[in-house]
């Protein structure tokens, strides 16, 4: 009993890491009041997020340092004068900030999109529309006996994925440890760090051959002889199908490698249908930014679409949705004449030819740190590092809501306002 109370006491000191969409909630930190000096249990990626940026951003207009209020009214001015502004990002913002951004998009009649339109959007869309069965990460820890990473390398993208939820931890129905109780499979085009841990359960397939491999696997699951056009021992596909068939609780983690190689999600939906005919399978997208799924969920709740929307000016409920409202198409077609970029860096993440239009239009960035995009922006507004300097809530990759408090004392006057506050002040200034 005594021990128990100690554990609970410890839990109260735990913080949430916003380094990725795993939102690990068992992090202890030591601070000197202003900065985090020591971090326990978080991975290196999480530690570097929590320790803050190397190059914090300053409030600027046209490259000149200004008071933050001046930057905010300059931002409002740009949005006011724009016929068709783009609001983009928000994967590294709290739910509160995302909801504010949706309001702002309605007020100014903006195109609103996030990185999901060129990454996990299709997977999430299939889950939101109940086309694919999903489960929580806690279910995985407690029950999963077969875990598949497909086109994903969590050892680099979500370092604690295997240790906290999928392969190594003991769970209610997985008491005997990973060697006996779980099988971990990796399907990828290269032997990643994660693939290495899978040992002989690593299936290496050629680039862009995922759809073909899925169909061969469906054949094998249906008792047919699997055939693929590339060199691959059909016996190994049958062996894989057998493991999947025997699973009591299987989960496939879908990474960008798989999403990028498919034209649409249909092959995955087919595979999941087949798997649930002969076995019991769930799917979870390997969402990157800590609250990308939150953005998709919040927009979906509001409009029925998870990304790529355009609102009519003046708070009307009219909303259009379509591929033409993705950041990529909006920039390619030059249909937007100003951009508000929040917590992301499109100039470095998008191909140069696409991002180029951003250099021709007024750009506002809201971010704690300097980025490629912020260096080219007309207006920069520094914001609090969420999860460290401001609290809120976010949606984990499996759809679970996680609440968090700021780690650093927010009463400290030098702390920058949160994304949510900045957006609210822009709306006021409008």
């Amino acid at each position, binding site marked *: 009993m005594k021990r128990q109370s100690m554990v609970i006491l410890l839990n109260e000191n735990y913080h949430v890491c916003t380094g990725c969409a795993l939102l690990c909630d068992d992090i202890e930190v030591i601070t000197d009041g202003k900065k985090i000096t020591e971090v326990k249990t978080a991975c290196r*990626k999480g530690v570097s997020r929590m320790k803050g940026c190397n190059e914090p951003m300053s409030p600027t207009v046209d490259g000149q340092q200004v008071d933050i209020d001046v930057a905010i009214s300059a931002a409002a001015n740009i949005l006011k004068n724009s016929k068709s502004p783009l609001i983009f990002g928000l994967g590294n913002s709290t739910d509160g900030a995302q909801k504010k951004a949706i309001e702002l998009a309605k007020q100014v009649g903006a195109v609103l999109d996030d990185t999901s339109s060129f990454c996990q959007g299709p997977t999430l869309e299939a889950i939101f529309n109940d086309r694919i069965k999903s489960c929580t990460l806690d279910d995985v820890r407690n029950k999963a006996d077969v875990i598949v990473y497909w086109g994903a390398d969590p050892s680099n993208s979500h370092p604690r994925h295997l240790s906290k939820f999928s392969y190594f931890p003991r769970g209610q129905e997985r008491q005997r440890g990973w060697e006996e109780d779980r099988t971990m499979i990796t399907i990828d085009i290269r032997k990643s760090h994660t693939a290495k*841990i899978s040992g002989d359960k690593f299936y290496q397939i050629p680039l862009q051959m995922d759809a073909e491999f899925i169909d061969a696997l469906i054949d094998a699951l249906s008792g047919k002889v699997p055939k693929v056009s590339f060199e691959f021992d059909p016996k190994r596909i049958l062996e894989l199908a057998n493991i999947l068939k025997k699973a009591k609780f299987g989960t496939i983690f879908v990474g960008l490698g798989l999403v990028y190689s498919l034209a649409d999600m249909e092959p995955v939906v087919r595979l999941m249908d087949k798997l649930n005919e002969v076995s019991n399978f769930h799917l979870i997208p390997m969402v990157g930014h800590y609250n990308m799924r939150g953005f998709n969920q919040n927009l979906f709740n509001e409009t029925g679409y998870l990304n790529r929307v355009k609102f009519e000016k003046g708070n009307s409920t009219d909303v259009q949705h379509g591929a033409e409202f993705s950041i990529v198409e909006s920039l390619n077609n030059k249909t937007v004449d100003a951009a508000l970029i929040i917590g992301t860096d499109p100039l470095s993440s998008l191909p140069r030819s696409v991002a180029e239009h951003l250099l021709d239009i007024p750009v506002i960035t809201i971010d704690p740190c300097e980025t490629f995009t912020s260096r080219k922006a007309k207006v920069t507004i520094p914001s609090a590092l969420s999860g460290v300097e401001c609290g809120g809530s976010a949606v984990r990759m499996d759809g679970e809501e996680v609440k968090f408090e700021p780690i650093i004392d927010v009463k400290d006057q030098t702390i920058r306002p949160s994304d949510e506050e900045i957006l609210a002040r822009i709306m006021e200034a409008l």
Partner: protein
Amino acid sequence: MGAAHNYEKVRTMANAMEIYKLLPKTNCKECGKSTCMAFAVSLLSRELTVDDCPPLKEDKLKANYGKLSDLITPAQGASESGMIVHEDKCFGCGNCVVACPVNVADDPHGAGIGRAPTSDKVILRVKDGIVRTSNVQECRRFGKDKILCNGCIVTCPTEAIEFV
């Protein structure tokens, strides 16, 4: 094997003495230990680092600081069980922490279920994004009943843990 165990102990003591000789020997307690000898032992077990002794950084002890840093590096590299952590390769994924059978046995509701360790007895834990060792004498590869455990080796994606 008992002899080997004793030998390890003897070696440890000798090293602690060597370290002690280079410390300020004032027992000022600034490092949080009650004596410089206790600090020397903590240095060996890697519980503390040379930097935890502020007086060592004063100018007159600079040479000793340097010598100690050199001395501790090998001890930091290979702990008494022969374990070496290549810190540059480790990215703090925690696989080894959760897979280590000693960690699981000592901390079934913390490290054992993938969460932050809640017991002082664990061998492996992650601090500042890198795995740290303590209680290495509990490692199953160490001591008189040793077995060839490789839990932390095969679960590491980057071969950051090695035994010599």
